[in-house]
């Protein structure tokens, strides 16, 4: 659980008296500077920071967002702190907050001073990770609590651009060698059929819903009619492909057979494949839809 980190971000209200060097605010400023905008917390400092008399605001965040915040001008910067808390350093805190999993992001608004929310709610707000763990939405969401928006920008993904550029160049170079393949209708036929097969096997469902590939314990069929695992895509697409192929064999290949015996054998073979695989498909469907009343030979 070591990698479960819990960054925090703190705001010190401007009305807070600057007392001494031991002033918690100064501590936070120093700590933040030391950690490139992110404070490393333990149970003790966490207690200080979340004390009921706090006049600053805590917000956890990712290092990326914290790093972006470090570029903000000083007067704003020192009012907010990003902080992280490792499980190892602050088990008590985790127990206190009733946390069973990490990462978790809490926003601690200022409890006193001009930065306190107008609604008077000072309880920590939990950030919703349902949209994923990207830094950009996090920064956007946290900007609602900071005095000025966090100047976060997605890092430029050089690797992506470079690989795209190489890919395009490589394609152009190989184009003249493979142009007979590209101009063949059967290449395109295969592509189209592959798209249709994959799409009609629920590939987009697994992508949009982020379905796991399997359910674990060798269970690869998701329960429920409106649900499926990633492996079902390949199995179902394979079944459809096999059925379509056996059908095409009957239509396109068998009639060209010049020997009656061989032709007959092929017809029976592919019909058998068709019937058996179709039966398997129906019984697979019966697993998904328990109320389905029909079955074939399997």
């Amino acid at each position, binding site marked *: 659980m070591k990698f479960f980190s819990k960054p925090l971000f703190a705001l010190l209200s401007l009305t807070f008296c600057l007392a001494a060097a031991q002033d918690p605010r100064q501590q936070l400023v120093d700590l933040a500077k030391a950690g490139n905008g992110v404070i490393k917390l333990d149970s003790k400092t966490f207690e200080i920071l979340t004390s009921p008399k706090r006049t600053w605001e805590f917000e956890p965040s990712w290092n990326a967002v914290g790093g972006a915040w470090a570029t903000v001008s000083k007067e704003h910067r020192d009012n907010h702190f990003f902080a992280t808390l490792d499980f190892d350093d602050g088990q008590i805190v985790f127990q206190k907050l009733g946390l069973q999993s990490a990462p978790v992001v809490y926003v601690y608004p200022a409890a006193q001073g001009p930065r306190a929310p107008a609604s008077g709610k000072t309880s920590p707000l*939990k950030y919703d990770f349902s949209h994923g763990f990207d830094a950009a939405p996090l920064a956007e969401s946290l900007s609602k609590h900071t005095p000025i928006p966090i100047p976060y920008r997605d890092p430029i993904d050089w690797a992506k651009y470079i690989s795209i550029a190489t890919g395009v160049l490589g394609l152009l170079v190989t184009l003249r060698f493979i142009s007979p393949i590209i101009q063949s209708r059967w290449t395109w*036929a295969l592509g189209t059929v592959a798209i*249709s097969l994959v799409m*009609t096997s*629920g590939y987009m469902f697994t992508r949009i819903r982020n379905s796991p590939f399997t359910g674990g314990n060798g269970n690869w069929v998701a329960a429920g009619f*409106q649900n499926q695992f990633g492996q079902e895509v390949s199995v179902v697409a394979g079944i459809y492909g096999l059925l379509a192929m056996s*059908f095409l064999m009957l239509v396109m290949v068998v009639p060209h057979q010049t*020997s009656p015996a061989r032709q007959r054998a092929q*017809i029976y073979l592919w*019909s058998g494949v068709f019937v058996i695989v179709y039966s398997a498909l129906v019984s697979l469907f019966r697993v998904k839809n328990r109320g389905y009343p029909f079955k074939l030979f399997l």
Partner: protein
Amino acid sequence: MPTAYPLPKNLSPATVANTASLIRIVALALISGAAIASRLFAVINFESIIHEFDPWFNYRATRVLAAKGFYEFWNWFDPTAWYPLGRVVGGTVYPGLMATSGVIYNLLHAINLPVDIRNICVLLAPGFSALTAWATYMFTKEMKDASAGLLAAAFIGIVPGYISRSVAGSYDNEAIAIFLLMFTFYTWIKALKQGSALFGTIAAVTYFYMVAAWGGYAFITNMIPLHALVLILMGRFSSRLYVAYSSWYAIGTLASMQVPFVGFQPVKTSEHMAALGVFGLLQIVAFAQLVRSHISSQQFQRLLVAGVVSIGVLGALAFVLLTYKGWIAPWTGRFYSLWDTGYAKKYIPIIASVSEHQPTAWPSFFMDLQFLIFLFPAGVILCFRELRDEHLFVIIYAAVASYFAGVMVRLMLTLTPVVCVTSAVALSTLLDTFIDPIEPEITDDAQSESGASTTSSVPGTNGAASTAPTATSAAASKKAKKAAPAASSEPGLKLSDVFASSTVKTSRPRGIYGLDTRVMIVFNTTLVLAFFVSHCTWVTSSAYSSPSVVLASTNPDGSQHIIDDFREAYYWLRQNTPEDAVVMSWWDYGYQIAGMADRPTLVDNNTWNNTHIATVGKAMSSSEEVAYPILRKHDVSYILVIFGGLIGYSGDDINKFLWMVRIAQGVWPDEIQEPNYFTPQGEYKVDDSASPAMKNSLMYKMSYYRFAELFGGNPGQDRVRQQQVPKVGPTLDYLDEAFTSENWIVRIYEVKKEDPLGRDLKSANAFAHGKKRKRSKPAPRRRAIV
């Protein structure tokens, strides 16, 4: 010429042709009958009633049209929808469906058939499904031949993927739109094949009808240009394409702009830009072709090509610039979410919340299309074998539609026609191959044993390949002889797909030897088709024929039990509340309340105003104290919630509640936060461990108010979520329970007026219950100042 089975010899070709055409007509009539009949389950099992949600609005609008005439309908401002905003119905609706019913209504009344408008609305979709079958027949006939067309018509007539949206009572835009889709595609193919401006114009007119009928017209708007573009890129530009496309685009676009809801979108939004761009490209290419035919110089031609390309690039850049400058609107969220599938959930939760916008899992495909789903790729391959211009259309359609159908359940509807067409092509090719009586001559050396032993009709001596016209040249070593031209005069018995057109080895004879394999294949096919028919019947009767306004369950003795809570509650509203009483509910029920209870609603299924919906969501998901001012500001008198916990109706509001929270959070992120409605463990609970925000929310309170009392001291059980509700149920201070339907599915609450004595309703209620006012608890804010 050897045949596998004896053929009658004394038939004149005219007799055969006439019989075939009679059979075709009879078959089409029967298919139409089957298409209509299979959609009547809903009427037979239940009654002649409008289904679901959107149809209720269409029905209401049609009633206005039928009663007051077209101009009244066109200028209709509905003050009861989206209270207090109102809705300009004439300008925000696709009027094609209502106009169609209105025309039929007036026509029937003109010939003194006093049919009720409701029955016309209920039966419109089945009626149009027969027309769809015919249009699909015509379309497939262009792809292969009439027999494939008949198969395709039969498939689309009974396939559940189409029935799901066109049963009797499902009075929605899709009811007529699929017919228009197929007919526009048919006329487009016809125009392209013949280079006919007439068919191009017909395509444009049906396109206009489609635009007036369904928002999905954008599919045609992009499919036809895509087809044209692919033809140009493949070097298949022809004057036929030019005539067909130009006539379709010019007339169709001008016509579509006459629909007020569409207006100037065809020249201003990205969805329509592909059509405009291809139109421009075609002009350039046509011009280049014209110039090329008049000049000869090689260099000048190169110059011309360069010029054309640079004009094209400039035009594309102009589009980019216009989009960038905002002259052309970018893709709307609805379309954009088809490409970037995470977009809707993040930015437009209303779209993502609709169940028919969810992605499709494979069982849905199999349920809706059954064996067609795997004949579909085979049919696509067969289209590639011939690859005429019209086959390209089907291929593009197949690839695009299967992607769309995978992204959204709803778009299964656009995939269904192409699946029917391609699988009909595949199946009819199989039947053609195996029914064709002509046997090829045995060319194998081992002919004596195997060939003779199998069938009675041993191949004769002078037999030849039936279809390969030039069989002689290449296969020199074989004994193939000259193909007898016009092997059989019957058009239906000819092998119509000629492998010779492709470049692959075609010189060998092709055909099926013997009778047993033919019988087996035909028998198998019949079985598969019979299975398909029983599957379709079962799916239609069990899954797609429920009106969802009326629910059905079975009694212990197996008889049907009708649950009619919705209508019970709506009629209660209609009869017991003042006519201007505003009813608040989640938007799903807006159209039904307007249609059946005839009361103003805050939000309805025309989800055009996100903020208004979020307001309702906020009221539902906040505590009574917060919600009350919202309710009063919107003049809400009654709140209607759907609760399925008693009888296990899973489509209730508690299950939709998270979407309400999400949509409200999108507008008020500081006040509503989705995680607050989960337990600390991240579970969605309604029992004792439910989070405080959940327990205090208006929705929870209204759903479970006095629910525990039903169980007489025993712990109450929520049958949808399978959880025990708290023994002490929620209390209400600002609302009064007004009505609860028989099975508790619909619960209606009255919003209390302000207290006459000026107290807040909470303390007034406490006073009424004889509770002492607690003075010992001052507001925490004051204490903080001290």
